[in-house]
């Protein structure tokens, strides 16, 4: 880790980042509504959006059919990308805070493997019988799988002695992940025909996002976000380690379990509708930390803004570059996320 700068930033200079964060979400969101393979000419879209605001009336020249594309197809994608991006970043930042490890991601403790297994089973079993179901069983199975995996991790992790240390939990998570992955491979080998579907689900996609999806995940993500944000000051106290935090009056075990549960809830919901979008949960909090320091009181909320903007932006190239087919968003986040992170590191080095 590079040597930190000498002084902590003043409150005034930090305030500007909130504004930048909010503005970037709005700007990128507009961009997401504007760009796409079909629909109205790009510069008409912002006008059409303005026209929809109360008290504003502009003739944007956009037909109802074209507006439908913007509102029914792109807008849910943008909103969902914002929600998923914000949730994954917040969950990642929370895990990193509560496990004091900058390398953990929101899929720690088995959420990813559990959700993947759930989805795999749903795809494998999703034959004629379930084809007529009104609800798509895949998101449900993924959600349930994610939550069960974390519950299993917690049960195993706290079963041996009363240590309940962070390391024991992480190791239990590794064990559960391995088990879930093994079972998933087993199921896939016996159901070769769904391998492509499962793989494409794992890479993550926002392709078929609908307002229904948004309504589905919003309550879980909202509850999860509220809980995690409420705990951010306490997570900051935990930066001095479990023992010292205890002597400062923090109930470390309780905080950790609440944070894990809340983060799992939100992450599982996000994964259920968007698949496993990687990188966001590690890259975004890290980038925020590089720019703003490691205080969780700032990193947690700011990560939500940056994560939302990042994922909306990442969703755009996927539908334009390889049009008419789509590049899975998981590939885009990796492709653009890594160099961006390197750039941030370089910027930090240069500044020293």
């Amino acid at each position, binding site marked *: 880790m590079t040597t*930190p700068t000498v002084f902590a930033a003043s409150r005034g200079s930090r305030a500007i980042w909130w504004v930048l964060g909010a503005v970037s979400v709005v700007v990128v969101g507009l961009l997401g509504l504007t760009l796409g393979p079909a629909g109205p000419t790009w510069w008409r879209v912002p006008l059409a959006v303005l026209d929809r605001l109360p008290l504003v009336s502009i003739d944007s020249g956009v037909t109802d059919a074209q507006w439908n594309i913007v509102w029914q197809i792109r807008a849910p994608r943008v909103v969902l990308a914002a929600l998923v991006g914000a949730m994954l970043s917040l969950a990642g930042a929370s895990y990193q805070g509560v496990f004091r490890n900058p390398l953990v991601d929101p899929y720690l403790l088995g959420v990813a493997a559990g959700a993947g297994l759930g989805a795999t089973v749903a795809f494998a079993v999703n034959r004629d019988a379930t084809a007529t179901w009104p609800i798509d069983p895949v998101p449900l199975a993924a959600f349930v799988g994610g939550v069960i995996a974390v519950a299993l991790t917690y049960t195993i992790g706290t079963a041996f002695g009363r240590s309940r240390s962070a390391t024991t939990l992480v190791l239990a998570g590794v064990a559960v992940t391995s088990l879930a992955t093994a079972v998933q491979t087993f199921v896939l080998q016996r159901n070769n025909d769904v391998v492509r579907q499962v793989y494409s689900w794992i890479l993550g996609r926002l392709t078929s996002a609908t307002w229904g999806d948004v309504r589905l995940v919003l309550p879980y993500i909202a509850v999860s976000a509220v809980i995690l944000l409420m705990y951010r000051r306490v997570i900051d106290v935990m930066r001095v380690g479990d023992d*010292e935090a205890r*002597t400062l009056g923090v*109930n470390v075990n309780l905080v950790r379990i609440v944070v894990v549960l809340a983060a799992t809830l939100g992450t599982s919901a996000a994964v259920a509708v968007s698949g496993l979008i990687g990188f966001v949960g590690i890259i975004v909090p890290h980038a925020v930390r590089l720019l703003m320091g490691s205080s969780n009181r700032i990193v947690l909320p700011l990560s939500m803004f940056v994560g939302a903007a990042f994922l909306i932006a990442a969703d755009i190239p996927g539908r334009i570059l390889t049009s008419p087919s789509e590049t899975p968003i998981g590939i885009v986040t990796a492709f653009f996320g890594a160099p961006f992170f390197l750039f941030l590191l370089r910027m930090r080095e240069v500044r020293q």
Partner: protein
Amino acid sequence: MNSLTIRGLRVEYGGCAVLSNVDEALVAGEWLCLIGPNGAGKSSLLRALAGLVNFSGDVQLGGRPLGALSNRQLARQVAFVPQEPELPADMSVTDYVMLGRNPYISTFGRESAQDRQIVADLIDELSLSVYARRLLGTLSGGERQRVVIARALAQEAPVLLLDEPTSALDLGHQQHALELVDQLRRSRNLIVVSAMHDLTLAGLYSDRLLLLHQGVGVARGTARQVLRSETLAEFYGVSARVIHEDDGTVVVVPQRSNGEY
């Protein structure tokens, strides 16, 4: 007036008694120093008082049993300065000292203006004003020790526990740190319990010593009473001369044995 009484304190790790039958009584303003060889139980005693390990026996502060207190309540009564405190490199001094106010801030709340004032006053009192917005990673060892003490004081606890407060410091900073603790315990009437390796310093600054050996208190009293060469030879296995200075200081000087063992 606060008093700390310990009766029959026993700490076990996996069935093995690390501390047994420890009895002590301290009043406000008193400084007790725990001495003894490695593994004697000094740290365990401090950690038991800080609520970090389970113990059996009766420990009371001002008549109230410590064991019955919640984390938060205990944090308001006992402040613990560990041997190697974790100092996040990019946390500012002010934010770090503010951590000591945690027992007074509600879980989902924020610091109040009063909390900020207390922290600011402490930073002034410990001559840390020029470092107030500095990041912890840029401080030297002596400054870091003052910052950790400031955090402990922010807890406004009547009991201050120090685990090897001087082991990482040079001679000058050792003296500064101990003088600071002495001055603070007098002005704030704190009960101080410290564990120290340096016997001379232990005797010089504390009111009383408790020599622990394999979890049991084997000698207690003033420096003059406890620091005797026979006692040190028996329990530390060290060959040392004890010199009594005119001003009352007891100096322990290790001596080489000239090849005989």
